[in-house]
């Protein structure tokens, strides 16, 4: 449980070009070990989501490298990349991204459907995941008819249904009230503690970050010490 699953070296990411060019990441080097729970903390616009998307191989860096299980991510393409995304990663995005007009069960089964798991097995695994999140009774409801907290739990069920090794969560409690947020936090850390799933949480919430085993602070696209995060920014901070 101590190997490095994810590491980055001198990651940079630019958006746009010419005068509209914006450097969202300016040389980020981090290592994440198997079974860790890491919080990526920073103000809005500091590049947290950008970093997470690159770590999760959803986006490619402008320069620098990402290594997954010792493999250079730049070399992962096509079917191998898709399998990795499908089997190794689980996502909880900043928004819920539930498919409207389909049932909770269908939403949770989506990763399994993509993984070509048979209908019966798919249903069993999805119901199991919903059970873990105490949502069994909502399986047949329309995803859009749920409350915010319930939706976030559905999203987590979807993230863990195919038993991933790493769960990426972008502001998992951002849309929730404190009480519901706490429930969701408990769930995520429980998965980390009991199942050894590596957790990468993006947040600007210090309290949530404090529960993680390690924190990575970002400011203006750079990794900084905890103390520097709240220091007055030298450059304009993106919205």
């Amino acid at each position: 449980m101590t190997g490095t699953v994810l590491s980055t070296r001198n990651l940079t990411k630019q958006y746009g070009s010419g005068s509209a060019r914006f450097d969202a990441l300016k040389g980020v080097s981090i290592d994440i070990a198997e079974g860790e729970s890491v919080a990526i903390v920073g103000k809005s616009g500091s590049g947290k989501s950008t970093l997470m998307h690159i770590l999760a191989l959803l986006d490619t860096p402008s320069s620098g490298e990402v290594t997954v299980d010792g493999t250079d991510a730049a070399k992962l393409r096509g079917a191998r990349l898709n399998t990795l995304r499908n089997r190794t990663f689980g996502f909880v995005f900043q928004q819920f991204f539930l498919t409207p007009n389909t049932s909770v069960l269908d939403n949770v089964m989506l990763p399994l459907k993509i993984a070509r798991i048979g209908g019966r097995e798919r249903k069993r695994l999805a119901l199991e995941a919903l059970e873990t999140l105490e949502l069994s009774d909502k399986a047949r409801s329309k995803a859009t008819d749920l409350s915010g907290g319930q939706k976030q739990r559905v999203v987590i069920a979807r993230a863990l249904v195919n038993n991933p090794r790493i769960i990426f969560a972008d502001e998992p409690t951002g849309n929730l009230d404190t009480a519901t947020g706490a429930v969701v936090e408990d769930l995520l850390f429980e998965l980390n503690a009991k199942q050894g799933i590596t957790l990468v949480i993006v947040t600007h919430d210090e309290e949530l970050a404090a529960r993680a085993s390690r924190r990575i602070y970002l400011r203006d696209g750079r990794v900084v010490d905890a103390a520097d995060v709240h220091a007055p920014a030298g450059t304009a901070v993106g919205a």
Partner: protein
Amino acid sequence: MKAIDILTTAIGNSFRSRLRTTLTVIAIFIGAFTLTITNGLGTGINQYIDTQLASIGAADIVTVTKPVAATTTTTGPKPYTANGPTEVSGGGAPGSTVLALTDSDITAIGKVAGVTAVEPQVAIRTDYIEYGTNGKFQLSAVGEGAGVRIQLAAGSQFTSGTTSLEIILPTSYIDTLGFSSNKDAVGKTVTIGITNAAGEQTTLDATLVGVQDATLFGANPSFNPALSTALYDAQKVGQPATATSTYSSATAHIDPNATKSQVADVKAALVDAGYAGTTVADRIGTFQTVIDGIILVLNAFAIIALLAAGFGIINTLLMSVQERTREIGLMKAMGMSGGRIFALFSTEAVFIGFLGSAIGAGIAMLVGGVISRVLARGLLKDLAGLQILSFTPSSIATVLLLVMGIAFVAAVLPASRAARQSPIDSLRYE
């Protein structure tokens, strides 16, 4: 995703925006409906012509005429010469003038390579036909060579090679002559009156073997060869021995198994000998070409409607892709390949195409069946056996496949746009 999951998901997706799908389906429905109807019309008419083909003449018969040289037809009548050829109208193409055939012509035609037998088309002018004592009615009939199949409402074809005198009458004669039904008429003996060259009227008895359905080309009483000969002989009685017989045309028989090119060879040989030969296929052929042309134009309209519907599909799918940008991003983030995203959207289009064309073809078949039946009882009552709209499984399958093909082509642009989307751009999309 498995193929079956792609299919069910695509079907599910198409029902998610019901109004939009419905409107697109209606557009396709209109095109598919029209195409099915026009196709059905083509099939119906052509099938009918095929059945009629047998009734106007057998495949092994060539009608031979002697055309007037081209220069003489445009410069008015030729000067009369005592032993020169006589012009007769009819026998060839409508309106054209042909020269009468003499006995020496008949012999010459018989010697043309490929012609197995030849018989002159004799003009028989009968006076009347009568059944029992139910009154005398005018009769103008055509002699039919052996092997001609007539579409019958009752009875049977001429007995081949028989010496007994046989006649087939159209349905319109049955009532008039005093029979109670078509079936009742079969096997009865009728009397035919004919005036000979000396001006005396004689009669002949013939057996009514069959009753003919009305056809596209009208219906005429037909005599079997034995009856034709007997009547012709009766008509000739009293004719001066010196009189030469002339005929408007002759019927040449060829090998019934002759191939198209062999038939063409015989026709070419006839032309070389100074005659013109037309087969039944030639006569039907021109008719069918016209029908096919009309159907083609009608089909073109239907295809235009379908192309318009194709743009409807493109539009629907583009909106669908736009609407589901995030969903696409999510599926990609979860490891769904671009190829499968493409498959998902193109399947949706093909399904919409299937829905529209299946409903269109289905309703067209129902409506077509009703129209056919109504017309068969009303306007087209006299043309027994004409199913004006006829649907074959293969033409329905063609319509379905064509529409689904158009739908697939229409899906290429939106679906490949969806497939190319990067997961992160889609997820950031507002």
